[in-house]
């Protein structure tokens, strides 16, 4: 499990990023893999870490920020504990992924702009094609792929997770 958002102190935060930078020989050409590793560690790209990465690689912060905002995988906003990704590829689209997405967002009170629940439990995003078109429409929750989804089936997956979260809190 990765670090909980806002959990550890700053010192520990930078310790991790130093390890990542060292692993990539502080090579500016490895900026994309470095940011990928940072995001895996922190679950998003915190602004102070981006600045730190820029300084260490002797790059202008604008360049690092530019790369971080260019690629769809990078997010500058903290993500929820569970990341729900709805495939928005062509096959999923023609097999009606839109109502599934709508149902997921409705259940969690989210929208296209508001991607994460206030309790930081869920983030709902769309992703362009996961290549599992034979199973369209597809939803990926954390690492698990769920195929041939209906609005009801997708919501019940969320209910299951909510019940589990509720259980662990008690």
């Amino acid at each position, binding site marked *: 499990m990765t670090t909980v958002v806002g959990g550890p102190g700053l010192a520990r935060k930078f310790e991790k990023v130093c390890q990542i930078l060292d692993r990539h020989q502080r090579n500016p050409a490895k900026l994309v893999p470095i940011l990928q590793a940072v995001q895996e560690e922190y679950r998003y790209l915190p602004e102070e870490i981006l600045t730190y990465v820029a300084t260490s690689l002797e790059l202008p912060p604008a360049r690092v920020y530019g*790369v971080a905002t*260019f*690629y769809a*995988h990078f997010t500058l906003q903290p993500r929820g504990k569970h990341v729900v990704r709805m495939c928005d590829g062509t096959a999923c689209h*023609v*097999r009606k992924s839109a109502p599934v997405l709508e149902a997921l967002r409705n259940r969690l009170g989210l929208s296209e702009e508001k991607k994460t629940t206030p309790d930081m439990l869920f983030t709902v995003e769309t992703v*362009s094609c996961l290549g*599992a078109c034979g*199973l369209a429409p597809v939803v990926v929750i954390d690492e698990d*792929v769920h195929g041939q989804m209906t609005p009801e089936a997708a919501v019940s997956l969320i209910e299951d997770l909510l019940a589990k979260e509720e259980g662990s809190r008690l």
Partner: protein
Amino acid sequence: MTQATVALSLEALAQEYELRTAKVTRRVIICAGTGCVANGALKVHEAFAQKIAAAGLAVAVNLEGEGEGTLVSRSGCQGFCQMGPLVTVLPDGILYTKVKPADVDEIVQTTLVQGKTVERLLYVEPRGGRKCRGCEEITFYKRQQRTVLKDCGLIDPEDIREYIHRGGYFSARKAWTQMSPRAVCEELLHSGLRGRGGGGFPTGRKWELAAAAPSLKKYIICNGDEGDPGAFMDRSVMEGNPHSVIEGMMIAARAIGADEGYVYVRAEYPLAVKRIRKAVQDATAAGLLGPNVFGTGGALEFHVMEGAGAFVCGEETALIASVEGHRGMPSPKPPFPAQSGLWGKPTVINNVETLATVPLVIRDGAAAFRKVGTAGSPGTKTFALTGHVANTGLIEVPFGATLREVVFNIGGGVSDDNGKVIDDGFKAVQIGGPSGGCLTNEHLDLSLDFDSLKTVGAMVGSGGLVVMNKHTCMVSVARFFMRFTQNESCGKCVLCREGTKQMLALLDDVVEGRGTAETLELLSTLARAVQKGSLCGLGKTAPGPVLSTLRYFRAEYEAHVFQKRCPASRCKALCPPRILSEKCKGCTLCAKKCPASAITGEPRKPHAIDAALCVKCGACVAACKFGAIVR
């Protein structure tokens, strides 16, 4: 190291595999592609290992030592994802579909112990309901010609020895030890192999350009950034036979004189990333890659890099920028990457499927390769067949096969929204994804190849084939692709960045009922401007879906614009709301909210909407507390 000792090592590895499998009498192959894993294939694999042992039979799960009895192995994608998890039993030649862990015991008892077939797990043809025992009987497989995909779905993609045992890396050795770089280029040129990534540029020509570039340092890059939504050919090859891609890269490196290579894989394909990484590691450990390739003294080193979710990185100059750690933005050509690519060095970028085809060309020779396909487009092509079709999955056919063959024979026909096969349901096929165009009834007998598709305003693209039935709204399909390209435009060229945005706004007008005759006019003018004013393939081809749907389905656009009607009843804003009389309580709220006074009815009795007055604003739908008004 002398050539003889290295030559021996390939044969030795093959022989070692031979020895380890000598006592294997049966093989159970569980498809472990993304689709089947999502459906629980790994649990099925585990169950087989347990149940076979429990039945008192000899079982081998890995080939660390000598295997005996039944070998239970995993394979890459077999292309029949919707029927997964798939289990193949060899040499019986039985294919079981939708196998659950609970079915495993029955398969072990019936098939492995008694040698009989479990009828209920066989595939049933959607037309006619015939039960098929194995691949040879299933039309979906029978009518394909699998060459690049031949070993996908059979071999264990994580076992380099099995790949070598089936003749793998022998082509690379031939290219490195028996052929000059020039001979390799010429063989490719004669074969007529064209890039499978979309453009269809002759691979041999690309290599020749890079080979001729004077530089001590050159790079080979494998483009595995398969971003076309609705296509998964490259994913399947990387998951199912990763070593064929590595071998193709080795041959390309030999041809151009490269000593370093990158495999750029989409991060959305975690399994492909894992298998390619393992393949590079294993090939390096076996000494195939390293400081002394096949004893020639030549060095070769490959790295794997994950993409970060940008469609434009499929364009070669953008991909190079991404590898260099920049925003993935394309740059003008010339200079071509073959002259000045990664870090300014000559670089060849080939698509996954192209590279996986290369070892076959070297093995069989250019003449044999040309025997399949058409004169202008030799060889076979893989397509991802998806959408409203009975058999969705990965297929491989020779260039020149017709759309009819692919959709109706291999695909088993068009299906309705619930997956049931319907006659006369075919409307169109979108080929080439967001860059391509649509093909209709009149193209059913058109030969699928690079050149003839271009003449009808479509393209092979990467090979996504999305079948659409009669209930699909073509305007909303065009809008879907426009939203995709608008979203993925890198922002460099004004016409691509702003033009796609405006085109999307115009399409929104059409599907939301605000369109006029001028909208359509403007849409096609702008489409041509975006085509002309964009630097890279993304912008140049972005208007493709709009132009081709305007060409073949103009009537549908006109219905949206002039009659404010969606013929397929898909565009919500154009579908008048209906009152479900059994749910309506007659509360009169909707009538009060209706701005057009289109709703009438007596209190406490079901109301009705006058379609002639209705402006389809949806205020009534939002107002109704009983859910009695629907679109």
